[in-house]
């Protein structure tokens, strides 16, 4: 090193910096691809603002730095490699050998020479090294992906493709035959093969727009949503478990998948599709689909086994999952790289990353209770109300027109004379209320059945009115019921209850202050002990303890509580009973009944129970006095309670009332703010779920916090707008801070935000699915490290069309698929292949293998086993026969067949899948029970012609028929020789399996 320093000093101090030439785009591209990465990797550590210790006073992180040079003078002389010190140094030609750790490869050195010769185009311009960090946002804006759209006027898909082909002297292929075309379009749009009938119909339709109509039909199929939702699930790194060692399931996470299917099927505008996944709960809180969409943010992994030391970094990892996936999925940008340092290649300062990440500071997974169908709820209520009104009217009419006469008729029979003496009168309850949300259903025997919610603790208030007098005791029954656990009589899991407090207050019906009644425990059928679980403990001063009956479950129980003095106001009495349940949890009585008696104390526990109405009426009439109008009205009202006709009508009204439709509430896993975070294992050690602030971290290290990050976006994508344009304060009283809504607005803002890139990225994804490769071959990386577009004008044209058409995707599918490029044949024309072996210019159709899901779904479909039920919870059962999108995605139990056929692991956003050809795939086709099952299903068809049409969408050739015949007879003989029943069928199953194994089955031409 000593020698080197000396040498550096001896070299001349050189020329003044020159103005950069007008940036030539190809030159800049060359720089970005070939030069900048090498500079960053091999030189920056000593020669940039990032350098821990700057060497030789030389900065190579800006054009200015290179031109100015260091101690030894200018590093480059644009246009003249031989005079450029940098070139000499990297050639290792002289004593100055750079980089010191090892010579660059010959190719790289040549790249540098070519670059300098070209004038050393360098978009970094001035001042990168003076602006502390090596990022120049203004220059970054000139990069193609960060520019506004430049759609060529009057373009068409084919026009733009053919211009390039013509320039290369290549003629595109002609159209594929129609059989292939319908197969291609059907697999592309719905992921299943066309049926023989669909093929026939298409072949028979000779109208010029037959193909267009086919596309329309396919786009309208519900299977379209299933197919395209599956593509998006890769992008969203979606799974239904936390991952890591415990990998707990995330219940109700599948609603995100169902959102996607519905969104694609109804062609939700893509900007809204994006907005809802970021902030649906904030932007459209009344729309259940918008809530379901937020599953996107929370779909990443989370390590639920955490030690305290890991809490904070785990939360930053979670923020990173949201931030990085947002970048990759929507913008095709690897902004996650800026977590630890300024992005090495793209113009994203680390600060931008944290500003963006702070959007999600308080965002958490939560179980939301959504009304999935508010319209339906409203409609159901309206229907109910329409049915209810006539029942009420019928009752009122009956009471007015018929009841008085029926009362007179009944009274004429002097019924009180037939009344035996009574012991217990069952109280009619006029009010039954649970303070914690339980519901009570009146039973014919005067009891009420507690149903619905079984709260931890509860307080009940029951009210009854009576004209009876001289009441001496109340009997509380706790009755068994088949609907209760262990038959009751309590609602606890073991059938027990524990009534911690039981109180009574009375007052005259006409009004007056309630007076507490001192209750004393009398007879009881059974009590769990004589102390804190006795009947007495329910009416003592102590709030704890309370009557309980373990282990006498499944039986009726009762306890009598006597009054200190007889009760009964002259005008009638209102009794208010308070029940309290706080001695244990979920320990309410299941079916209580209250009765009163006027026999002198001590009242016996049992005795015939009579309905209150009859008893009261008899008391009233027995007195024998003529009834005045008011008394008669009261008597008729009481009579109404025992009149069968009236009771029937009343019951009809009550039953209908009980069936009043409540809004249907569904638990859905969402990502939101301000709701209770979804509990998991790490809660046990006190994991806080989120921190109030997000900090800018140095090197991503939570122990190296800098200042608090306030929300912002990626500056290089912004054009002359203040970020306030998107950030609006949340409405007063809002549960959420509105940060995600701001991000959603920024992402979709075509004029000043990320909108143009958003559109480019999604049309490229569609293109990649339809053509096998995107116009940008790296769908998740539109940055400098990704591939540049093969047809930039076409990309911009399609993106602009998308926006112009209100962001609807279906018209873009149609536009792509209607092109001659999409419809052309797969034929390999040697001349074309020579000029463009990779088919970058799309002179032919590349055949591609179906993805894992489409292979399995097609097997099931052809085997006649496919269950088309849509939506709902998934399963891990490999034997299920629904479409593969309905597999439950558990990170530690990914479905083997999916993985063998290259399904990705759901950890980070995936832009595309590889297609591998490996022996385990062949083994699966040869030996798996699934393929055998599907072959057996297909083999039910005996006609070879039909078999071919079902499996491959075409009839067999003569030669195929001959081969099939030979195989079938040999195989059949083999089965017959071993005594297999129906050897012909067995042979056909094997034949069908071979058909399913064919390349033609899994490759779409």
């Amino acid at each position, binding site marked *: 090193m000593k020698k080197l320093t000396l040498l550096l000093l001896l070299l001349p101090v050189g020329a003044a910096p020159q103005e950069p030439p007008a940036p030539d785009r190809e030159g800049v591209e060359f720089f970005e691809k070939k030069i900048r990465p090498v500079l960053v990797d091999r030189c920056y550590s000593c020669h940039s603002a990032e350098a821990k210790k700057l060497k030789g006073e030389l900065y190579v992180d800006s054009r200015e730095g290179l031109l100015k040079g260091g101690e030894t003078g200018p590093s480059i002389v644009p246009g003249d490699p031989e005079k450029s010190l940098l070139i000499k140094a990297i050639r290792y030609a002289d004593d100055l050998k750079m980089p010191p750790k090892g010579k660059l490869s010959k190719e790289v050195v040549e790249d540098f020479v070519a670059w300098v010769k070209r004038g050393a185009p360098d978009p970094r311009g001035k001042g990168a090294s003076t602006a502390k960090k090596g990022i120049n946002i203004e220059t970054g804006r000139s990069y193609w992906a960060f520019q506004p759209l430049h759609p060529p006027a009057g373009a068409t898909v084919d026009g733009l493709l053919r211009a390039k082909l013509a320039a290369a002297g290549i003629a595109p292929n002609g159209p594929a035959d129609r059989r292939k075309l319908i197969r291609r379009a059907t697999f592309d749009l719905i992921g299943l093969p066309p049926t023989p009938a669909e093929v026939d119909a298409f072949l028979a339709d000779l109208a010029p727009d037959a193909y267009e109509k086919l596309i329309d039909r396919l786009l309208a199929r519900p299977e379209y949503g299933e197919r395209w939702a599956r593509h998006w699930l890769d992008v969203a790194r979606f799974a239904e478990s936390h991952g*890591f*060692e415990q990998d707990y399931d995330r219940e109700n996470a599948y609603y995100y998948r169902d959102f996607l299917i519905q969104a694609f099927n109804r062609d939700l505008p893509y900007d809204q599709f994006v907005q809802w996944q970021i902030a649906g709960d904030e932007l459209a809180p009344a729309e259940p689909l918008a809530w379901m969409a937020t599953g996107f943010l929370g779909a990443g*992994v989370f*390590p639920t*086994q955490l*030690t305290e*030391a*890991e809490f904070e970094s785990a939360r930053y*990892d979670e923020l990173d999952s949201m931030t990085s996936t947002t970048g990759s999925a929507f913008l095709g940008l690897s902004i*996650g790289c800026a977590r*630890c340092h300024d992005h090495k290649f793209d113009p994203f300062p680390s600060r931008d990353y944290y500003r963006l990440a702070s959007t999600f500071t308080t965002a958490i997974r939560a179980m939301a209770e959504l009304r999935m169908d508010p319209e339906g709820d409203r409609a159901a209520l309206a229907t109910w109300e329409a049915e209810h009104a006539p029942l009420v009217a019928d009752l009122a009419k009956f009471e007015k027109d018929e009841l008085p006469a029926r009362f007179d008729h009944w009274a004429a029979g002097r019924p009180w004379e037939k009344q035996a003496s009574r012991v217990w009168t069952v109280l009619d309850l006029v009010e039954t209320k649970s303070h914690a949300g339980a519901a009570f259903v009146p039973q014919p025997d005067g009891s009420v059945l507690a149903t619905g919610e079984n709260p931890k603790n509860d307080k009940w208030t029951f009210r009854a009115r009576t004209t009876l007098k001289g009441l001496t005791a109340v009997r509380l029954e706790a009755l068994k019921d088949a609907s209760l656990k262990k038959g009751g009589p309590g609602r606890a899991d073991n059938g027990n209850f524990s009534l911690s407090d039981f109180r009574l207050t009375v007052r005259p019906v006409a009004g007056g202050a309630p007076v507490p009644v001192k209750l004393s425990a009398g007879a009881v059928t059974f009590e769990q002990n004589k102390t804190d679980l006795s009947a007495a403990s329910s009416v003592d001063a102590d709030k704890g303890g309370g009557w309980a009956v373990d282990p006498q479950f499944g039986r009726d129980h009762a306890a009598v509580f006597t009054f200190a003095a007889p009760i009964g106001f002259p005008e009638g009495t209102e009794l208010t009973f308070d029940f309290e349940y706080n001695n244990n949890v979920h320990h309410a009585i299941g079916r209580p009944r209250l009765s009163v008696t006027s026999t002198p104390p001590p009242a016996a526990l049992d005795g015939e129970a009579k309905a209150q109405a009859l008893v009261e009426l008899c008391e009233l009439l027995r007195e024998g006095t003529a009834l005045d109008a008011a008394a008669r009205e009261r008597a008729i009202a009481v009579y109404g309670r025992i009149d069968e006709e009236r009771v029937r009508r009343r019951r009809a009204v009550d039953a209908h009332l009980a069936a009043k439709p409540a809004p249907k509430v569904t638990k859905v896993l969402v990502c939101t703010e301000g709701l209770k975070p979804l509990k998991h294992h790490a809660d046990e050690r006190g994991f806080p779920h989120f921190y109030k602030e997000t900090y800018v971290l140095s090197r991503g290290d939570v122990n190296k916090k800098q200042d608090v990050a306030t929300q912002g976006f990626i500056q290089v994508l912004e054009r002359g707008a203040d970020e306030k344009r998107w950030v609006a304060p949340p409405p007063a009283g809002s549960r959420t801070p509105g940060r995600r809504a701001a991000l959603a607005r920024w992402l979709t803002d075509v004029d000043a935000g990320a909108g143009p890139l958003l559109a480019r990225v999604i049309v490229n994804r569609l293109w990649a699915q339809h053509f096998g490769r995107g116009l940008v*071959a790296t769908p998740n990386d539109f940055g400098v*490290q*990704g591939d540049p577009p093969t047809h930039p004008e076409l990309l911009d044209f399609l993106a602009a069309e998308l926006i112009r058409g209100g962001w609807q995707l279906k018209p873009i599918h149609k536009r792509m698929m209607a092109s001659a490029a999409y419809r052309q044949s797969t*034929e*390999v024309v040697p001349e074309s292949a020579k000029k463009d072996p*990779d088919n970058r210019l799309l002179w032919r159709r*590349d*055949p591609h*293998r179906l993805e894992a899901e489409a292979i399995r779904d097609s097997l099931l479909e052809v085997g006649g086993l496919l269950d088309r039920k849509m939506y709902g919870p998934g399963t891990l059962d490999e034997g299920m026969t629904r479409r593969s999108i309905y597999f439950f995605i558990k990170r*530690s139990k*990914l479905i*083997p067949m999916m*993985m063998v056929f*290259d399904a*990705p*692991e759901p*950890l*980070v956003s995936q832009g*595309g*899948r*590889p*297609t*591998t*050809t*490996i*022996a*385990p*795939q*062949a*083994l*699966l*086709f040869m*030996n*798996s029970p699934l393929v*055998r099952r599907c072959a057996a299903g297909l083999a039910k068809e005996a006609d070879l012609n039909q078999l071919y049409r079902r499996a491959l969408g075409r009839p067999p050739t003569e030669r*195929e028929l001959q*081969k099939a015949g030979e*195989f079938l007879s*040999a195989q059949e003989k*083999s089965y017959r020789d071993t005594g*297999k029943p129906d050897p012909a069928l*067995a042979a056909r199953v*094997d034949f069908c399996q*071979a058909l399913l*194994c*064919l*390349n*033609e089955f899994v*490759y779409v031409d």
Partner: protein
Amino acid sequence: MNLTRRELLAKAGNGFGLLGLASLLSQENLLADEARDPLAPRPPHFKARAKAVIWIFVNGGPSHVDTWDYKPELEKRDGQELPGFNKFTGFFANEVGGLMKSPFKFSPQGQCGKMVSEIFPNLGKHVDRMAFIHSGWTESNNHSPALFMMNSGETRMGHPCVGSWVTYGLGSESRNLPSFVVMSDPLGRGLPKGSAQNWGAGFLPSVYQGTYLKPAGAPIDNMAPPAELAGDRQRRQLDLLRDLNGQSIESSPAEKELAARIESFELAYRMQAAAPEALDLASEPDHIQKLYGLDNKKCTHFAKQCLIARRMVERGVRFVQIYSGGMENQLSWDGHKDIEGNHRGFADETDQPVAALLTDLQQRGLLDQTLVIWGGEFGRLPIAQKGGKPGRDHNPHAFTTWMAGGGVKGGVSYGATDEVGFKAVENRVSVHDLHATILNLVGLDNQKLTFKHNSLEQRLTTITVDAKVIKEILA
């Protein structure tokens, strides 16, 4: 479609395929050019010292002070407090005890005189073949992150493990077997924490995923033909398939992918025979079975796995990982309670088989080209974890790994812990350094073995760290 191999892989997503058997395709030259075949054998960066690796993964965190890192000081200070100890070092902050001497006797072994715990009577005889690295340290005190760290160089999910990197770097050598095989505890004690992630290909294509031999039932899915297709029936079916497929190929000869798929069926057919053969221990002579301890009830299961490992390596498998122990606590070397009983038990399960593996590889001339690694995800604390029978809690600050065979010096010890074995203090070795050393031994330069993911050239030893090869233990 003339993608270079690199481009092909760059297009590939993040894979976690379940079967790395893909290797099979490569030896058949079915994928005519190397560019198309992710598993074609590839030359190393420099001459490899080892062709194969067998990693005995001592799962749960073996206690270095009770095995290979002898600390007489612990006897002197038994029961005393460890000054300045942070109670959050291990997993249980409320069960911190004083320093605890090893319950085991140590004695000098071999020419080198290495002090070895009495629980390894057989392995002790091989110390002159072993290079001990006493100064390992890691980044997590928690099993699954530490396991991920040891296997993939990152505490988080989603990064390729060492075996995947090696397969990616060197391709597959074997004709009919996967190149990377993993075995776990067959006694129903569970998988290492983080399960299949530990042998996952992470962001590498799924073809580089380890092939997991299931301990119960058929070891590999779909390996056996359906009963109906016994005899020549499946052969006849495959002949038909080839015939019918051939017709479509004739019409588009340029489609190499289709040709490769046709060949894959033939390969699969041969594998059906090859894999069971490799796993068939009955063909091993008696004295070999006895050498490994197949007749010793305490270690039959592990003896079988070690013997399978040798058979695999003989047949060209490149990377074998065997997990000793199941999940955690008493199910693995995770001796939170009763360190004595725990470690004695697991040592009894592995001592004879691993020693036999070394002997057997040696006598077949395979040890020179086979790197054997013994080590876990972290060490254990020199203090007691309080309880009826005291145990030891996790220690991320120090652990011991030994290597033997392919390219490693024997009878050497590298690095050291402090006098009680709490922290690595001399020549500290990070997990990245261990990885760099393993890669070096198989002929790979950790700086050059890269894969572009998320716009970055990712490495096993991570982008931000300069890992160093432990040259001192290289032969």
